[in-house]
């Protein structure tokens, strides 16, 4: 898509204060930060070079130097300040902050920062924006997220107490966190787990306690003992099971869609997890293959059914 003069004007105006803040930044770095080509950045700088105040004498023009690709603003004229935020940008930031707030425990100090920021952003507008509302944020009920972030930031290990739904037990584990992500309102921590000797993903709402470990020796050789290989299970989902696809899109490949059924291939290592999840959708789910997994699901249902037919 061809760029409009408006997009280019915005970038040109924004380049000046950005460079002033970072004297000697290179054309390459500017291209990376503004997500355009180096050629485009050079063209933008050339363009700014011929702009200026009415009169347009050398003293009234913008002056930028680009020696060996190092950029400096010598005379910004009146464009040394960054351009104000637009209403659209403020709306986008306020909504994003709301989504971030939803991932935090109500006692988390970040909540206060978020509320304050939203106030500051809204304060720049004449008319307040209607922002979406957020209900029950239970991504971090035990308030462990701030500690995990701290561990990641200073590169330390953690001791966590974890309730596993999969193996249905409470374990104390030593882990080296690698990354956090929020997927549809639930928080996940990806970490190396010394107890399982492998990489594991933990649901943050099931970590009931997290403590920073002092001076933990990082273990160099992290060779996973995992032997589980990913499997493909073909599953038919009727409209009652649509939520399965909405929640687990990342592990599903849609094969076919008809009026009453969507057939997906689910990529999992842990078939026990899949069966326990699928049984919740009852007859809205049909395991097409492999047949032994379908049989396992029936057997699981039979065992539980026995409790209700005694």
């Amino acid at each position: 898509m061809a760029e409009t003069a408006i997009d280019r004007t915005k970038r040109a105006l924004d380049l000046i204060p950005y460079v002033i803040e970072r004297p000697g930044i290179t054309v390459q770095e500017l291209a990376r930060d503004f997500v355009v080509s180096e050629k485009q950045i050079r063209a933008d700088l050339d363009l700014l070079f011929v702009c200026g105040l009415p009169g347009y004498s050398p003293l009234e023009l913008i002056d930028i130097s680009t020696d060996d690709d190092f950029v400096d603003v010598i005379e910004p004229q009146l464009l040394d300040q960054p351009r104000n935020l637009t209403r659209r940008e403020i709306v986008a930031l306020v909504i994003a902050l709301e989504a971030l707030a939803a991932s935090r425990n109500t006692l988390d100090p970040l909540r206060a920062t978020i509320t304050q920021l939203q106030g500051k952003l809204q304060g720049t507008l004449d008319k307040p924006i209607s922002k979406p509302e957020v209900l029950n944020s239970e991504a971090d009920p035990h308030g462990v997220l701030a500690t995990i972030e701290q561990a990641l930031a200073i590169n330390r290990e953690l001791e966590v107490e974890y309730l596993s739904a999969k193996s249905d037990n409470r374990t104390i584990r030593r882990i080296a966190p690698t990354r956090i992500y929020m997927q549809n309102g639930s928080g996940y921590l990806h970490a190396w787990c010394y107890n399982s000797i492998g990489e594991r993903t933990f649901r943050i709402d099931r970590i009931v306690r997290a403590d920073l470990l002092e001076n933990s020796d990082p273990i160099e050789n992290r060779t996973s003992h995992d032997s589980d290989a990913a499997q493909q299970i073909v599953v038919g989902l009727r409209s009652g099971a649509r939520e399965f696809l909405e929640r687990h899109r990342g592990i599903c490949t849609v094969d076919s869609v008809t009026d009453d059924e969507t057939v997906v291939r689910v990529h999992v290592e842990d078939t026990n997890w899949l069966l326990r999840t699928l049984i919740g959708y009852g007859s809205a789910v049909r395991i097409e293959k492999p047949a032994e997994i379908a049989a396992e699901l029936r057997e699981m249902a039979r065992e539980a059914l026995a409790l209700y037919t005694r």
Partner: protein
Amino acid sequence: MANKSESSAGDKTERLINLVLALLSAKKFLTKSQIFDVVKVRGEAAYQGAIESKDRMFERDKDDLRGMGIQIEVGGLDPLFDDEAGYRIKESQYALALPDLSPAELATLSIAATFWRDSALSSDTQSALRRLNSLGIPADTTNVGLIDLRYDTGDQNLELLNEAIESRTRVSFEYLGPRISQKSVDPYGLVLWNGFWYLLGMDSEIAEIRMYKLARISGTVSKSGKSGSYEIPESFSAANYVKTVLNEEKQIAKVKVRNGTSLTLTVQGQKLEQHDGWTLFEIPYESQVSFARTILWYGSDIEVVAPVSLRELLRSVLSEVARG
């Protein structure tokens, strides 16, 4: 031809920048004729042609600048001489100003911005962040990049719907309910609940407030009415509406749990009594369907004793699955 349009796009950029600079440097309001006089692009008048076409060009430029967040003040009418309006840009209104923005707040904005990553608003938030990062506030990048916010919701619709709510504009969309149907809705509010975004609004066909999951809106929402075509009752709160719906359904289940199992569920409940390797718990729940799903996860480690309706639901689901 391609060359010509390219160079005119470059011309327009130069014209806009020089217009901004002229209006910023103006001590007094500049009238249109003064602007046409002084604003130049590479030595030539930036606004050329007949007066009507200059006027049109200038009006478009003004709109474009306002769209960039640049406020152009109108004023300076001198009733004794002529009635021509003047224009200027105040430096204080041109510049981004968020009072006392701290490094930690700036970092928080960077994290929050990951929310829009794959959407049309991504370029807006990234541009906003670059300007916020030009304010001379030292960066606190301690936590930046550690967290990703991911929502599978059609975020483009989120923005469209938020805009429709602000402008009170009716929208229509195709919705995957029990079957696919076309909805026409006066949007009232948006709620993020349990990991998903929902729209609340007045369904224009049945004239009742309904809740729609954004993930089930297929394709893009389109505006189907004029702005300001309805009112949202002042007392309406999307969050309260959802809470009311949920509270009406709030119930307590009695479940028998095999000792030492179902830990993630039983932490939420109250222990009653214990015998024969089983413990009786009372556990609160909101939606019968999603609670049943949680119970089913634990297979033969949990038996629901009450309410009977939930027990019956589980029995029928299990017998269906057992039959295969």
